[in-house]
């Protein structure tokens, strides 16, 4: 257990940050010092064993000289070469690679004077201090920050990519952090993308916070295509104001072990929450999605659809928790998880958790785990289409239900392309 090693290092973090941030860090450091890393003895982590990762002495790349990454290196990960992007290399904001609409977005507002009060009010406000040791570790390590603030009523911003690039030096850890604030009636598309440029054993420990004001609309896409030798531990915390609309799509293609927590609170009445997810994994990959939708107020609607395709010895966990508080009458919630197993060694655990305390609500959930439909395969083959192509067409058909929900065309096309290349790697056998 090398947590002490990190604690010492964190004491030495640069002090050139706003006071609000250094307070936040210090508090998080205390929490990090008092919490152990989760173990499989905890209910929420029983299928996902992070203990091998906690034994590795990771080095914090944000404390080291910056690696050289060119625009050419990152272009494959952007839907639009000329689009808005905030780029971080090994956890550090890169001014040269970024292309920001400065009135709304910043890669690092720690030196900005006006940032201080915003930081004090919002940064870390949505993440429960004791969420887990990883989130505390992220906050204690706060350096650079992707920050997006859309002013009241503004709707014309083209999609903003937040790209976290890891050069994947062996045993590197980075702490991506994103804060998005959408003021009343504003609208935006945010694409968070996590990539590694090499196959190193890295740890990405990411935290994202999203606050939607009254009537705000956010389409939030998360793409994770990191090294298959790496670990990706992330949590996203969303608070929805009255009549706001939050639509997320989480796409997991990479990482050896990934854990994604997505916690949405419908804090104001009439909110609309749609969570979509897609995990396409094979080999020895393991992915664990824990989602929580907390209907804290009445007249909220939530729709959740997570779909996965597993090849080789892939292992997936979907844990979907829906809480309907006592006052959250007229809640309408629906959760679906569908899985396609391509190989006999692939495994899935699908766990719905409904906690309903109100009495006038609609709540439905369903889960399926199956194989490619033999009759559909035969139908395609009977038209001359090869077994491999038929298999690919059916897999595409399966994932399209999710990717079709991305309303921004450019983003959708780039995600479809990414998903298709991943599917081409699937063999249907044990890797």
């Amino acid at each position: 257990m090398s947590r002490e090693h990190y604690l010492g290092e964190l004491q030495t973090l640069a002090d050139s940050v706003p006071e609000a941030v250094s307070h936040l860090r210090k508090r998080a450091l205390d929490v990090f010092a008092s919490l152990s890393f989760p173990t499989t003895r905890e209910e929420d982590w029983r299928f996902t064993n992070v203990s091998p990762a906690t034994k590795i002495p990771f080095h914090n790349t944000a404390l080291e000289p910056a690696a050289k990454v060119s625009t050419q290196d990152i272009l494959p990960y952007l839907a639009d070469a000329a689009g808005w992007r905030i780029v971080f290399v090994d956890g550090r904001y890169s001014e040269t690679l970024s292309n920001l609409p400065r009135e709304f977005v910043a890669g690092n507002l720690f030196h900005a004077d006006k940032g201080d009060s915003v930081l004090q009010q919002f940064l870390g406000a949505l993440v429960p201090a004791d969420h887990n040791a990883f989130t505390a570790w992220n906050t204690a390590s706060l350096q650079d920050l992707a920050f997006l603030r859309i002013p009241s009523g503004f709707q014309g911003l083209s999609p903003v990519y937040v790209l976290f690039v890891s050069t994947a030096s062996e045993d590197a850890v980075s702490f991506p952090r994103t804060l998005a604030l959408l003021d009343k009636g504003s609208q935006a598309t945010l694409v968070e993308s996590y990539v590694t440029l090499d196959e190193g054993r890295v740890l990405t420990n990411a935290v994202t916070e999203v606050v939607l004001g009254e009537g705000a609309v956010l389409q939030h896409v998360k793409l994770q295509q990191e090294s298959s030798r790496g670990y990706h531990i992330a949590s996203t915390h969303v608070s929805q104001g009255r009549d706001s609309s939050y639509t997320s799509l989480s796409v997991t293609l990479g990482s050896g072990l990934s854990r994604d927590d997505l916690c949405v609170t419908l804090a104001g009445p009439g909110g609309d929450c749609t969570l979509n997810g897609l995990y396409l994994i094979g080999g020895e990959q393991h992915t664990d999605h824990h989602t929580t939708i907390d209907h804290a107020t009445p007249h909220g609607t939530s729709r959740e659809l997570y779909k996965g395709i597993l090849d080789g010895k892939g292992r997936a966990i979907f844990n979907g928790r829906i809480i309907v508080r006592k006052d959250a009458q007229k809640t309408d919630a629906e959760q679906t998880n569908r899985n396609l197993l391509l190989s006999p060694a692939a495994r899935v655990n699908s766990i719905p958790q409904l906690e309903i305390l109100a009495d006038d609500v609609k709540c439905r959930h369903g889960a399926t785990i199956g194989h490619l439909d033999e009759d559909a395969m035969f139908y395609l083959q009977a038209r001359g289409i090869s077994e491999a192509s038929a298999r690919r067409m059916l897999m595409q058909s399966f994932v399209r239900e999710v990717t079709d929900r991305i309303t921004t065309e450019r983003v959708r096309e780039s995600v479809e392309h990414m998903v298709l290349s991943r599917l081409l790697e699937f063999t249907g056998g044990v890797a």
Partner: protein
Amino acid sequence: MLEIRNLHVAVEGKKILAGINLTIQAGEVHAIMGPNGSGKSTLAQVLAGHPSYEVLEGTVLYEGKNLLEMSPEIRAREGVFLAFQYPVEIPGVMNFQFLKAAVNEVRKHRGLEEMDAMDFSSFLDEKVKLVEMDQGLLNRRLNEGFSGGEKKRNEILQMAVLEPKFAVLDETDSGLDIDALQSVAAAVNQLRTPNNAILLVTHYQRLLNYITPDFVHVLFNGRIVKSGGKELALDLEARGYDWIREEAVSL
């Protein structure tokens, strides 16, 4: 063109076909009739190569080659076609893309150049007119939300674009109203040539009013128990299947 000898087939360990013998020449139309459960659809599926059907005994020669050794896609590329009784809905695949992929697989196999979207589009236009299908169905997901009649018409469209040498039409008449039946039959008649052959699998005689068979065979308990000309179909329509059952039992 097709020669079935002593074909025995089982599904999930249960024997369905018990010694089928049937020879079909180029240019001929054969009809297989029979009561429910006699094995009609099993025969259709096994000729197309469905993996759930186990051939226990017998041979099928197609143009002198062993059909049973070919995978379903090779059969299709070699010119064998099955119009499905229950076409499968595939929600994520566009009908147009599917048709284009199928045609190009077959063309590649026959040593022809693949068609691009433009060429295929004009090629497809003609065929859509031939089968009198709603053009809008091309831009829909394959069979998804199609009515029964639209699905059957889409099957015949596939037959028209793939230009098979040997086509099996499995209960293509079921679920069609009389107008649709007539137009589907007219399309099939236009696809008849002296070089191809068609096997119609049907429970009812009414399709045969519009597509005239050269031979009619009655399937009962997995065997062809009677063969004749087109009059046999009228006989069956008038007298039902009971007399066949009696004759078969007394054999």
